[in-house]
């Protein structure tokens, strides 16, 4: 279990000071696939490097299973990193790269040999064991970097955007591969990415970061379906935002009056920001449907219909102001169709809209 408490990192000083991490506290369970998700510059890589030991935090503590990690130099931490650039040793072969950590730990030769073979099997690189790392493809390098970091059996594996250099298909394959490896090895994975889809696919839990702070922590479904604030809702997936009035809230639900005057039930804010008054609602485009103008919760005019292959996006200019996008999956036989200029009504069931914190 990793416990990070109040981690703050300020680079430089005086007028040049830049706060990369602001009072970050998070607990990551053993054997968890935990993702740090956020735009570039949000502090996710800084946090990873603090755990690895390449950066000392200005304040705060980092503990691994009750032991203070900050007292240990990087080479004494039972934590290994898969670098974004892979950082494979160019003068060593694939097998020698994988053996490196074990050799530094002074493991017996026989054990090193068997572990390296096991790792080569695990990442399906056995046939290329004696190649130089410059002679293998990007995807293969990525697997070697993974095997090299896993070979010493660290308690925690840190992954710094390891898939960003791969092409789309390979990335999809490696996402499943990583999830499988994490499951098989039982090692805690801390994964850094700016790709929300990657985060949703692989993680047990996700921490969404922005400007050096953690904005929300939760499972992929929690984060996607119940974003706590506008940044999270906006960063993960596409979202419609509606200004509305919160009338009352109890438990998980809030009674909302839309700008059209119609009332609907929404998910109350998970952080308890449910005071009556003006609030922002988030509604995923795929959770809303189109119908006749008079029957909708909101009505408007269709401005654009954009075909995406798997689905179609309907852009609606809402009568009371604002834009709204509805996404509908395309079916082989499309019965109902709309064209730009049509009058439409927007419908969404009670409980799919989410009240956001300001």
């Amino acid at each position, binding site marked *: 279990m990793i416990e990070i408490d109040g981690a703050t990192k300020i680079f430089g000083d005086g007028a040049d000071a830049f706060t990369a991490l602001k009072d970050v506290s998070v607990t990551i369970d053993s054997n968890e696939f935990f993702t740090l998700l956020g735009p570039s510059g949000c502090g996710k890589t800084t946090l990873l490097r603090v755990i690895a*030991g390449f950066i000392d935090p200005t304040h705060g503590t980092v503990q691994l299973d009750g032991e203070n990690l900050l007292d240990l130099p*990087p*080479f004494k931490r039972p*934590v*290994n990193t898969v670098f974004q650039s892979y*950082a494979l*040793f160019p003068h060593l072969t694939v097998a020698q790269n994988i053996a490196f950590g074990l050799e530094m*730990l002074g493991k017996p030769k026989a054990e090193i040999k068997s572990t390296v073979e096991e790792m080569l099997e695990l990442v399906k690189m056995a046939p290329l064991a004696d190649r130089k790392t410059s002679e293998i493809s990007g995807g293969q390098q990525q697997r070697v970097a993974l095997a090299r970091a896993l070979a010493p059996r660290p308690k925690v594996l840190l992954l710094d955007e390891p898939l960003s250099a791969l092409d789309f298909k390979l990335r999809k394959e490696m996402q499943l591969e990583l999830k499988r490896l994490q499951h098989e090895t039982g090692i805690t994975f801390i994964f850094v990415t700016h790709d929300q889809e990657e985060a949703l696919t692989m993680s047990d839990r996700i921490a969404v970061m922005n400007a050096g702070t953690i904005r929300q922590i939760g499972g992929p479904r929690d984060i996607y379906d119940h974003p706590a604030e506008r940044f999270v809702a906006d960063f993960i997936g596409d979202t419609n935002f509606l200004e509305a009035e919160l009338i009352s809230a109890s438990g998980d639900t809030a009674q909302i009056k839309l700008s059209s005057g119609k009332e609907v039930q929404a998910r109350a804010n998970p952080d308890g920001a449910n005071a009556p008054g003006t609030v922002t609602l988030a509604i995923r485009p795929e959770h809303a449907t189109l119908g006749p103008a008079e029957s909708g919760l909101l009505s408007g005019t269709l401005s654009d219909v954009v075909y995406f292959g798997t689905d179609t996006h309907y852009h609606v200019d809402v009568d009371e102001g604002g834009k709204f996008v509805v996404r509908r999956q395309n079916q082989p036989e499309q019965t109902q169709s709309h064209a730009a200029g049509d009058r439409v009504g927007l419908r969404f069931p009670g409980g799919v809209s989410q009240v956001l914190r300001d």
Partner: protein
Amino acid sequence: MATKGFNVRKQTGFNSIAMFCFVMLYLPIILLVIYSFNAGESIAVWEGFSWRWYVSAWENEKVQDATIRSLIIATCASLIATSAAVLAALATTRVKPWRGQTLAFALVNQPLMVPEIVTAVALLIFFAMVKVATGYTGLAYLIVAHSAFCIPFAYMPIRARLQGMDLNLEQAGADLYGTPVKVFRHITLPQLWPGILAGAMLAFVISLDDVVITEFVKSAGQDTLPTYMLGQLRRVITPEINAISTALLAVSVLMVIAFFLLNRTRK
């Protein structure tokens, strides 16, 4: 190839200036090499082809003596200078920026800036005092002097190599339980080798070639090949000098070729 704008090669006179520079640089050297094969006694009148001056230089005990001394000094000086240069290069590339780093950089490169004759005179005076104090008059003075002025030449390629290296590799080494010493030994050093060899060879050639400082620092009977040749010029000049020069030239050219090949292996 259609580059717009200024093209230096299209300027009037470019070709003639270039030709002039090449002729001035290489014609004397070509003549020197040609006359090293002269059968006659003159360095200016061609009397036919012969190896006699090479044989004569090879059999000249003073040349043998000076050559061996030059090689000893160049070997020792390049080893010492390269070791110091590796440490200096690490200290100027692998640490957090520190106060006085620029000064340290300037100090390391001092022999490139200070006129050689000044260093030579300073060393002459300083070593004279040491000689009086210790009574030692051996080769060590020359070795120390050569080591000192060879350091910047060894330093440059090593530093360039260190700067071009991916820092993530050393972090990965530390991440994989390598102590700083082990990381240097197993990660940094293997990749630094081409730079170190290049630096050592450059230092070797520079030491082999030095006249000014050697002339001032050497004790009686400590001629190196270049100072021996300088001494010969005061007497009768025979094509033997040409032959020795050509041999030195060949060694230098081989070193330079090796230097470029080593630096090219970097991808």
